[in-house]
């Protein structure tokens, strides 16, 4: 069990300023500061004069964008002795939410476990401090609770902030986080029981509101979803929802859990001669194509289903949990208005009718 502290807003501001001396500090910036509860939040690197903002809900970008990039060089060819892991920078990220942390577990599973470790990912992971925060509000698309993810994290962060009156309760979640607090003792005071009670009340309040928001949506639950996907394999749901898909790949790129990448080779004419890694999308036509032209995911319907079987069947089998954190980013980004909640509900409804 780690310690819990309290920091006044000005103290946290000063703490963030101190952090800027040690690392690159990213924090969410409101797109429209006049309406903090309606606007979107985007990560921005804190400069000298930008103030720290507290985002009531998750940012637009997924947390993974700090650990793998949409386009980057991951290896030189054999003629170079350079090791790309040596150049990762110390980074602090404010504004991470519980859904992001849940999604990040999937990224960790992919890149840190398995046959071999991705050392570039690991270097970034080790050089990054995650300062998360409770959700104090939610977007229409938010549905973390459907996957039994709370709107405030209980683990997986270095520090977690819970806003309370004129400051924040700061919960330590890791050794790295404790060290950071120890190095900046002046900004933190011991937390009082009344403050903890205040945090609990606020947490209960957001939980109740989110539950009410989700109640009438009648969402598919975590323990049903794998069966649903398996039994719904041949349903028309895939063909119907596919009609709106323009194969932009946005759902994958914006997803906190999607991790697929294309390993490509840069042209010899380019300076960056070596292996490139680009985020990839299973919604693209040639994603599964092999030499000679055979393609097991030929149709958009097959590819839409592929995205769902990966999230709700593959990951349940391999990791014990679905690879959806309920952040709703894919719903917001989709130009065809394909809603992950609606696809699952449609499968459930069609199966019910069949019975």
């Amino acid at each position: 069990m780690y310690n819990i502290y309290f920091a006044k807003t000005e103290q946290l501001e000063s703490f963030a300023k101190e952090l800027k001396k040690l690392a690159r500090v990213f924090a969410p910036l409101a797109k429209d500061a006049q309406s903090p509860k309606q606007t979107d939040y985007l990560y921005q690197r804190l400069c000298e004069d930008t103030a720290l903002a507290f985002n009531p809900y998750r940012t637009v970008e997924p947390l993974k964008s700090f650990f793998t990039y949409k386009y980057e060089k991951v290896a030189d060819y054999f003629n170079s002795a350079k090791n790309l892991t040596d150049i990762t920078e110390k980074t602090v990220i404010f504004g991470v939410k519980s859904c992001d942390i849940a999604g990040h577990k999937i990224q960790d599973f992919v890149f840190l476990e398995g046959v071999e470790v991705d050392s570039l990912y690991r270097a970034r992971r080790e050089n990054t401090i995650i300062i998360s925060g409770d959700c104090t509000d939610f977007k229409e698309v938010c549905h973390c609770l459907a996957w039994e993810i709370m709107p405030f994290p209980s683990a997986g962060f270095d520090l977690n902030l819970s806003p309370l009156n004129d400051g924040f309760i700061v919960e330590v979640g890791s050794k790295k986080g404790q060290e950071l607090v120890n190095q900046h003792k002046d900004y933190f005071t011991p937390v009082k029981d009344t403050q903890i009670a205040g945090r609990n009340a606020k947490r209960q309040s957001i939980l109740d509101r989110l539950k009410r928001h989700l109640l009438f949506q009648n969402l598919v639950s975590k323990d049903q979803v794998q069966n649903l996907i398996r039994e719904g394999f041949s349903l028309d749901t895939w063909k119907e929802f596919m009609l709106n898909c323009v194969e932009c790949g946005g759902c994958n790129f914006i997803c906190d859990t999607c991790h697929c990448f294309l390993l490509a080779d840069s042209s010899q004419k380019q300076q960056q001669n070596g292996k490139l890694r680009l985020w990839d999308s299973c919604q693209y036509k040639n994603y599964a194509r092999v030499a000679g032209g055979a393609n097991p995911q030929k149709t958009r319907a097959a590819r839409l289903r592929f995205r769902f079987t990966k999230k709700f069947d593959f990951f349940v089998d391999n990791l014990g949990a679905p690879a959806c954190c309920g952040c709703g980013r894919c719903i917001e980004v989709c130009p065809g208005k394909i809603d992950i909640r609606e696809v699952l509900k449609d499968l459930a409804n069609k199966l019910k009718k069949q019975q």
Partner: protein
Amino acid sequence: MNKNIYKPIEAVVEDIITESQTIKTFTLRPKENFSFRTGQFIELTLPGIGEAPFTPSSDPNVKDKIDVTIMNAGSVTSLLHNIPKNSSLGIRGPYGKGYPLEKFHGKDVLIVGGGVGLAPLRSLVLSLFGQIDKYKKLVLRYGARTGGDLIYKDAIPEWSRKPKVDLVTTVDVGDPSWKGHVGLVTTILEDLPVNLGNAVGIVCGPPIMMKFVTMKLLDVGFKPKDIYLSMEKNMSCGLGKCGHCRLGSYYTCKDGPVFTYEEVKDLHDIWD
């Protein structure tokens, strides 16, 4: 432990053998230590162009060189077919699980190849020859489209003369110069000289061929757990990270590429 998993090692093309109009075998000499188990695959990089997966076709006991037999079928392979000797290529791997040889011990081993699918099977055959006393019998069945499409033309007669070996080849379409069997590979799977209670069947070839051979083997009495298939999917990273080769709840690259039919029979679209 700061190994970069995406970085290839250098291998020099020492020899190029033309097997057929569309297939060549490249002998590569890796500049660093490199070894593989039969049935595992490698990613071969043509620097600045691209990368593609291949299962080596040589004996894994030969440590300083590896053979890769490549059909001109896609963008990388067509360029590979045009590289000169002494070119430098990149190798990553080996990846996947390969053939579980110990499970074949004491059994009749049936090996069925189709077209360029004989490439990984050559590596298997050479491994089996290296410890032939461990196996009861080696039954080889190989089919290609025409006589001109058969690969390892010199090796095949040599194999058929080895003790314990029963080898038949066939072509889909015969011509006046072809003296052997004509018909799809499934037509030479009747009356197999194997003891069905104690045999394994190993199949590699185009998906459509593997499908019909698998059906045939089931038909003649092989059990799903005794049929070993080389699944062809879009393996890219080789490590179960990039996602492309997913097959149900497996990744072909790390859980395969060799699967028993038992493991994959309930998955959707395995032959596509």
